[in-house]
C-alpha cells in the first residue's frame, strides 16, 4: 500500500467527468443520446501534446488507475505499481489518462444511471456496449482533452482489447499499442465461462429482468457465483495449489457444507466483496463485450487482413500460467502483425500469476515495460 508521502505515487488523484451531448451510435444499433465519461489524469500534457498515454481497464476496474483519494487513502489505483513518478509508466514524462468505460458502475454512464427518456434508471434497457463503442467514446474524450494522438495505449485483458481496437479504429491516432494477457477473440470455452456467470446473475430471483434498482434489491447471490467462476479462471491451478493447498479450515473434514477447504473460504470472500460493490447489469454487459470482440469476423476470420489497417508499433505480452487467454492466443496476434510487417515485440513470460499476472509486479515484466516506455520517442 502506498503511503501518502511515497515519492513514486502520483499522490491524491481527482476523478473528473466529461459530459457529451452528441449521441453515441453503438455497434449494436442503439444510441446513447447523452453520456458521461469518468476519468483521471496523471502527469502533464506537454506543449506539443505528444506525451499522452491512455490506460484501458479490464472487467472490474475503473478510471482510478494510480494514486489514492484524499478522502480515502486506502483506495489506491488498480495499476499504481506501474504508473507514477519514476515508475515504468513514468508520470514525470508521460501524461497518463485513465478512462472508465461506458456501461460501468464506477462513474461513466451505465445501467444504474438515469435514462433521460424515462427519468428512471436504465436498468435492463441500457444497451449492450462493445469494445469498438468504448474506443469511440475514448476518442471523443481525447478530443476533449486536446489529444490528437496517443503516444501509447496500454491495457491488460479486456483493456488490451481496447488497446488493439484503437489501432484499427484510429490507426493515425496511436503510436504504440501495448497488448497484455489478451486475445483477438474469445474461445468457445471463454464464452462458456461468461455464459455461466450471466446465468448465475439472471436466474437470481432478485434480478427482476434487470430492473432490480426500482425494487430496492440487488442480485447478490448471482453476482457472487459469477465472481467465483471468474476468479477461478484468473489464477492458475498451480498458484491456487500453492496458495491454498488442501488445507482444512477446521483441521478435519466437517462432513457438512460449511467451509472445509481454504480455497472455498477464499472464493466466498471474493464473491461477497465483489457483490457488495459491483453492478449485475454492468457485469452482464462487459462479459458480452468480451464475447463479441473479434476484429477478424468482418474479414472471414482472417486476422491478418483485419490488422492490415493498424499502423502502430506493438508490444504484446503473455504469461505462461494464463489459461484464460493462453500465450497461443497472443501468438495469433503476433503472427498476424508479422504477416503485415508491423513493428512488434512479443514477450512470453514464465510468471506464475495466471491471467492476473498482468496486475502483478513481476520484475521482468515491469523491466520490459519500463524500457519500452523509455524508448518511446515523443
Amino acid at each position, binding site marked *: 500500500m502506498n503511503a501518502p508521502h511515497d515519492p513514486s505515487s502520483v499522490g491524491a488523484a481527482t476523478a473528473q467527468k466529461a459530459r457529451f451531448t452528441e449521441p453515441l451510435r453503438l455497434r449494436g444499433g442503439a444510441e446513447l443520446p447523452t453520456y458521461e465519461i469518468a476519468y483521471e489524469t496523471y502527469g502533464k500534457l506537454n506543449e506539443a501534446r505528444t506525451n499522452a498515454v491512455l490506460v484501458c481497464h479490464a472487467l472490474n476496474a475503473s478510471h482510478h488507475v494510480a494514486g489514492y483519494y484524499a478522502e480515502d487513502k486506502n483506495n489506491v489505483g488498480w495499476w499504481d505499481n506501474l504508473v507514477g513518478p519514476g515508475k515504468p509508466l513514468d508520470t514525470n514524462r508521460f501524461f497518463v489518462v485513465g478512462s472508465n468505460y461506458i456501461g460501468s458502475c464506477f462513474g461513466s454512464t451505465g445501467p444504474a444511471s438515469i435514462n433521460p427518456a424515462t427519468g428512471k434508471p436504465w436498468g435492463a434497457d441500457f444497451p449492450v456496449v462493445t469494445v469498438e463503442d468504448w474506443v469511440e467514446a475514448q476518442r471523443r474524450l481525447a478530443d476533449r482533452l486536446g489529444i490528437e494522438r496517443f503516444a501509447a495505449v496500454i491495457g491488460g485483458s479486456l483493456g488490451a482489447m481496447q488497446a488493439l481496437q484503437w489501432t484499427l479504429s484510429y490507426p493515425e491516432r496511436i503510436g504504440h499499442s501495448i497488448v497484455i494477457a489478451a486475445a483477438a477473440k474469445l474461445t468457445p470455452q471463454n464464452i462458456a465461462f461468461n455464459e455461466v456467470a450471466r446465468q448465475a446473475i439472471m436466474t437470481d430471483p432478485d434480478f427482476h429482468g434487470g430492473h432490480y434498482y426500482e425494487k430496492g434489491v440487488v442480485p447478490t447471490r448471482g453476482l457472487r457465483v459469477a465472481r467465483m467462476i471468474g476468479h477461478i479462471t484468473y489464477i492458475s491451478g498451480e498458484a491456487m495449489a500453492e496458495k491454498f493447498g488442501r488445507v482444512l479450515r477446521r483441521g478435519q473434514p466437517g462432513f457438512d457444507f460449511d467451509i472445509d477447504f481454504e480455497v472455498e473460504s477464499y472464493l466466498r470472500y471474493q464473491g461477497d466483496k465483489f457483490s457488495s460493490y459491483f453492478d449485475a447489469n454492468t457485469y452482464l454487459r462487459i462479459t458480452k463485450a468480451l464475447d463479441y470482440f473479434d476484429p477478424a469476423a468482418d474479414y472471414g476470420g482472417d486476422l491478418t487482413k483485419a490488422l492490415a489497417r493498424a499502423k502502430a508499433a506493438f*508490444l504484446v505480452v503473455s504469461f505462461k500460467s494464463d489459461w484464460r487467454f493462453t500465450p497461443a492466443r497472443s*501468438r495469433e496476434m*503476433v*503472427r498476424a502483425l*508479422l*504477416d503485415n*510487417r508491423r*513493428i*512488434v*515485440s*512479443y*514477450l*512470453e*513470460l*514464465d510468471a506464475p500469476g495466471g491471467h492476473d499476472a498482468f496486475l502483478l509486479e513481476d520484475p*521482468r515484466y515491469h*523491466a*520490459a515495460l519500463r*524500457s*519500452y516506455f*523509455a*524508448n518511446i520517442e515523443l
Partner: protein
Amino acid sequence: MRPDLKAIVQWVPQGARVLDLGCGDGALLRSLWQEREAPGYGVEIEDDAVLACVANDVNVLQVDLESGLSLFADGSFDCVILSETLQTIHRTELLLREMLRVGREGIVSFPNFGHWSARLQVMLGKMPVSETLPYEWYETPNVHHCTITDFEDLCRRIGIKIRERLVLHDGKPVTLMPNLLGSLAVYRCTHG
C-alpha cells in the same frame, strides 16, 4: 563486435528484411539497422536477453526455436541468421529447413569442433574448452557440436546449397586447412 558478426553484417544486403534466430541482446540487429538500414526481428528465449533487446529498441519475439518458425510466413525474410546458435539446437535439421522456408537466404555461424585445439584436448582425454567453446562439459548449453566437414555433409544431404563460406580464427580468415586451423565458420546458403 564478434568476428562472425562482422562478416554477417557485410553479407546482408542494404535494406534487407532480416530475422536473427537466437539474437541475444540484439546487438547484431542494431548494427544491421545502423549500417545496412536492414529492419528485422530477433527471436530469443532467455528472459535477460529479451529484456536487453527491448532496452536496445530491437524488435524481439520470445518464442522457442525448437518448435520451428510457425510465427513466420513462407519467404517473409530476405535473410535469416543463425549465429553461434546452431550448436544449441536439438532439432537441427528441422530448424535449417525452417530457416530456408521463411527466408530466401540463410546465414549460419558455429564454433568449429574440428579445430586442432579441440582435437588435441579430446586426444588428451578432455572435453575441449576454448575461446569459441567456452563452457565446461557440465554447464554447456551446446548439445550438437559439429565440424566444418560435418556441417557441409548435412547441407548436401538435406539439399541446402552453400553460396559462400568464411572460416576464421582469432578474427582472421583461414584458407589453409580450414577444418583444422579455423575455430569459427560462417556460411551463406540457399535452397539447393
